[in-house]
């Protein structure tokens, strides 16, 4: 079986090299059959990698512990879903997952475009297959998932496996990595289209129209992946937080930021024919940062909780990253004349300008995070001196940037394309500004003096009211015309222009998430030792330990504490934090007790028992407003789905075209 698996990966590698070469050669030597052959190779690669993945999953499910990968990442007693999740629980398997996803995406792209973009598709295939060849090369020659344990070393007893890391045995961990991968890998598609359009010097925005949905869907996957990761950290790690600025968390955030910037600036190209170079840069940056993210996750380039130990794939990744960077830069520079803007900026107060600002600020925050992540490595290489960059740095640098971004979220969508007059600005913003100021004043009166939090809450109120006003105005207009109820009118309004109003919903979700982030300024925490029936005061609550019990299952032994949450003498809730010890991996994990409410969450982490056995130690956290992050995420999810629904009314964009440049372009083409 393992031989068949390894063989199919090897074949997939060979075929991806062939497909890349054949597609490009077929295009330039005008041999359609070569291109066709490359397209079929893509399907074959998908079949081969599906076979390899199926074999690995089968080995995991049936517990074939002769395989090093299976023995190291699963055990017999694990629930089937985690045995399946062990597919991406380790380096080799996760690279196989990456390759399989890329192969799937490629097959879908080739199939859906089998009659379109005949000029561009060979290059799209070429780009995607080069990337795939790199990944299949790694799992063929460097870190094979089908490595048999200790061949020829006289070990005949393969045991029951070491089990998946208990921290990963949690439902969000089953979907978080594939989601992130779907997002990371997915951005290869817009990137491949962009590069193909650049190299083949296609006029116009064909690649943008084709890949808009891809870009949105993969952005959504990335968002889901990042948020699920936050949810996991919050629920499982039990340290009263959801984001620790760990290099690997940063790595997942970086492509998300550039993808967000791309989704915004692409509208400029779609509607105005501007920012062509910039969009190329952004889509390439997103792709390269995805690769960088994988490098950080998989090679231990920077020290991190998530990173695997020093691994043999580091030089491969670094080489690939730098080669890709060089090639992309070269391709963009060479083709600069074909990326001339078709329109000009008419006013500094315009939608165009606000998009530029939005991009500038997003990129700045991306740079700040990247800088914080990589600078210690660079500095150590240069000066042999180590430096630590921890959460305080990221918070201090990113909070002002994020606040400004929040401001732009409110202002940008209401500024007209081309040019806005001050009068129209005043009309659009006086109510939201008033709401924002009133919020700040009310919070000041309530006794909140934290400056950043006040600013953030004020801006959140401002942005939310601009969005609410937009919905209100539009719905009222429709209500008046069609004589329907207001909610129906709002629904109708959204359906008529799903992109615009879906976009507003996404903004609203982001603002709600910001409300949740801001709550962290008021976190409280404490550590208490409690004996049975003892009560501890924490915030407005009284906590009483009522019982502690032990038990075990096939997989783990556990100790569970029962804590009554009381307020004014009344028991309002019971939390049951738990410590588990997993037998196979000999590792500990804790299940945090969480009381979720919209105003504040309470976390109780059962840390252990004092040496004399008289008391149990608990870490307590009060986390105001955290739930709004998950609410906001749900709204982002809904809004993005709305964006993907075709509008009821087919839109005609009033696009400004400068005839002179367009004809010049055509001349260049011919």
């Amino acid at each position, binding site marked *: 079986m393992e031989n068949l698996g390894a063989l199919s990966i090897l074949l997939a590698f060979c075929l991806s090299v062939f497909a890349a070469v054949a597609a490009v050669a077929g295009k330039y030597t005008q041999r359609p059959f070569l291109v066709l052959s490359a397209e079929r190779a893509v399907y074959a690669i998908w079949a081969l990698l599906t076979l390899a993945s199926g074999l690995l999953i089968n080995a995991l499910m049936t517990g074939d512990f002769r395989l090093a990968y299976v023995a190291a990442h699963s055990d017999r007693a694990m629930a089937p879903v985690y045995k399946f999740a062990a597919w991406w629980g380790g380096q080799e398997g996760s690279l196989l997952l990456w390759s399989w996803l890329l192969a799937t995406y490629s097959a879908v792209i080739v199939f859906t475009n089998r009659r379109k973009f005949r000029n561009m598709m060979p290059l799209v295939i070429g780009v995607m297959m080069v990337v795939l060849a790199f990944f299949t090369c790694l799992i063929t020659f460097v870190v094979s998932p089908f490595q048999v344990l200790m061949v020829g070393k006289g070990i005949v007893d393969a045991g029951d496996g070491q089990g998946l890391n208990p921290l990963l045995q949690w439902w969000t961990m089953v979907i978080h990595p594939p989601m992130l991968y779907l997002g990371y890998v997915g951005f290869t598609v817009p990137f491949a289209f962009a590069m193909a359009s650049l190299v083949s010097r296609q006029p116009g925005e064909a690649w943008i129209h084709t890949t808009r949905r891809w870009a949105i869907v993969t952005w959504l996957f990335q968002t889901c992946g990042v948020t699920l990761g936050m949810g996991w950290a919050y629920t499982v790690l039990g340290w009263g937080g959801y984001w620790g600025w760990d290099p690997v968390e940063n790595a997942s955030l970086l492509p998300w930021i550039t993808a967000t910037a791309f989704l915004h600036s692409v509208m400029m190209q779609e509607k105005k024919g501007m920012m062509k170079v910039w969009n190329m840069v952004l889509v390439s940056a997103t792709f390269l940062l995805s690769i960088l993210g994988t490098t950080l996750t998989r090679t231990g380039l920077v020290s991190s909780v998530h990173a695997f130990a020093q691994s043999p794939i580091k030089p491969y990744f670094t080489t690939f990253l730098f080669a890709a960077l060089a090639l992309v830069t070269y391709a963009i520079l060479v083709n600069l004349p074909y990326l001339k803007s078709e329109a000009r900026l*008419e006013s500094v107060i315009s939608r165009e300008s606000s998009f530029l600002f939005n991009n500038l600020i997003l990129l700045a925050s991306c740079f700040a995070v990247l800088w914080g992540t990589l600078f210690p490595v660079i500095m150590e290489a240069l000066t042999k001196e180590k430096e630590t960059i921890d959460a305080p740095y990221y918070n201090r640098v990113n909070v002002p940037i994020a606040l400004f971004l929040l401001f732009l979220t409110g202002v940008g969508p209401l500024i007209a394309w081309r040019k806005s007059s001050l009068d129209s600005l005043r009309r659009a913003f006086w109510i939201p500004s008033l709401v924002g100021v009133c919020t700040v004043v009310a919070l000041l009166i309530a006794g909140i003096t934290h400056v950043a939090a006040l600013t953030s809450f004020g801006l959140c109120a401002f942005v939310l009211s601009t969005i609410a006003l937009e919905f209100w105005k539009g719905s009222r207009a429709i209500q008046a015309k069609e004589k329907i109820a207001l909610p129906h009118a709002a629904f109708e309004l959204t359906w008529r222009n799903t992109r615009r109003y879906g976009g507003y919903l996404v903004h609203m979700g982001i603002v709600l998430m910001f409300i949740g982030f801001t709550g962290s300024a008021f976190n409280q925490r404490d550590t208490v030792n409690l004996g049975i029936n003892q009560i501890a005061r924490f915030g407005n609550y009284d906590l009483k330990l009522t019982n502690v019990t032990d038990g075990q299952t096939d997989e783990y032994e556990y100790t569970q504490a029962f804590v009554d949450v009381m307020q004014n003498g009344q028991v309002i809730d019971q939390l049951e934090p738990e410590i588990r010890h997993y037998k196979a*991996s*000999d590792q500990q994990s804790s299940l945090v007790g969480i009381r979720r409410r919209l105003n504040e969450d309470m976390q109780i982490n059962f840390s*252990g*028992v004092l040496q004399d056995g008289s008391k149990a130690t608990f870490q307590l956290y009060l986390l105001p407003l955290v739930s709004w992050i998950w609410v906001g995420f749900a709204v982002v999810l809904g809004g993005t789905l709305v964006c993907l629904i075709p509008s009821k009314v087919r839109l005609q964009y009033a696009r400004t075209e400068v005839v002179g440049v367009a004809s010049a372009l055509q001349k260049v083409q011919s």
Partner: protein
Amino acid sequence: MLPAHFKKFSPKKFSPKRMSTPVAQPSGCGSAADVAQPSGYGSAAEVAQPSGCGSAADVAQPSGYGSAADVAQPSGYGRAADVAQPSGYGSAADVAQPSGYGSAADVAQPSGCGSAPAVGQTPWSAGNPPVAHSALRFRPLRHIRTWNKTLAVAFLLSLSFLVAQDPTSFMTADVARAGTRLACRCEGCRNTVGDCPMLHCHFADPMRRRIHDMQKAGMSDDEIVRDIVREEGVVALSSPPTSGWGLFTWVMPFFAIGIGLWVYTLWVRRNRQPAAEAHPVDSAVLDRFRDQIEAETEDRGAGTSALAPPIRGHKEKNKRPN
């Protein structure tokens, strides 16, 4: 799925350690005991040996987990073995604290229920009798020669008075304030010494005690930080210093924004093409046109929103004839 001849490879128990690198360490005291305890638990005894070879424990726990201190930790970081790290604090003295600092203290308890209670034995637990947790049950010192055991107990008893408090008690407001300026380098988090949430963090706890002691000696926060940086380098700081390379780190993101703004203004200056100036119109006229636009777009069935800013866009076009 497996061919029949492969099946015979699977049934017996295989210690995970055999897969991870070296276990047996022929020299060094206590290593024999380690090998005898495949689970890795209970190796606290070795740490407690007066000869102070805590490193044996390191070798004995290739997984890095599993000492008693870990039982108290959700995330499983911070093994007792690290207490023996050469960084100064730590070593035998720390191990000996009965307050839960290190597992070794358990040795001092003749009942032998040292590390186990956290999971294995909860004396008060109502209902079910405690379930035996083989992996967690305290292994008595039977693998060590008697004189060695005696010495260990005596050694521990002599040290136990040193710190008779819970490690959390070092977390005073003063310690937290100074601690937030120092990085927690436990590799398990990106927090500071002042707010690392991990109980018994093998890095933050000794550091907190050090800060506590320095504060007791009358040192200010600045002096404490300066002393620690002098010893360990800027790597000890939680965020880069505001001088030298550190300043570069701080300034760079804002410098990048500056460059971005500069490029933006350049771009605007080069690409600017002012639209024809609109004549000022009074708001009554504007409102009339706005109504008209709404009426017309609605009649055609296209929403008011067909174009992103349709009303204003049309408005400006429409007002030109006026």
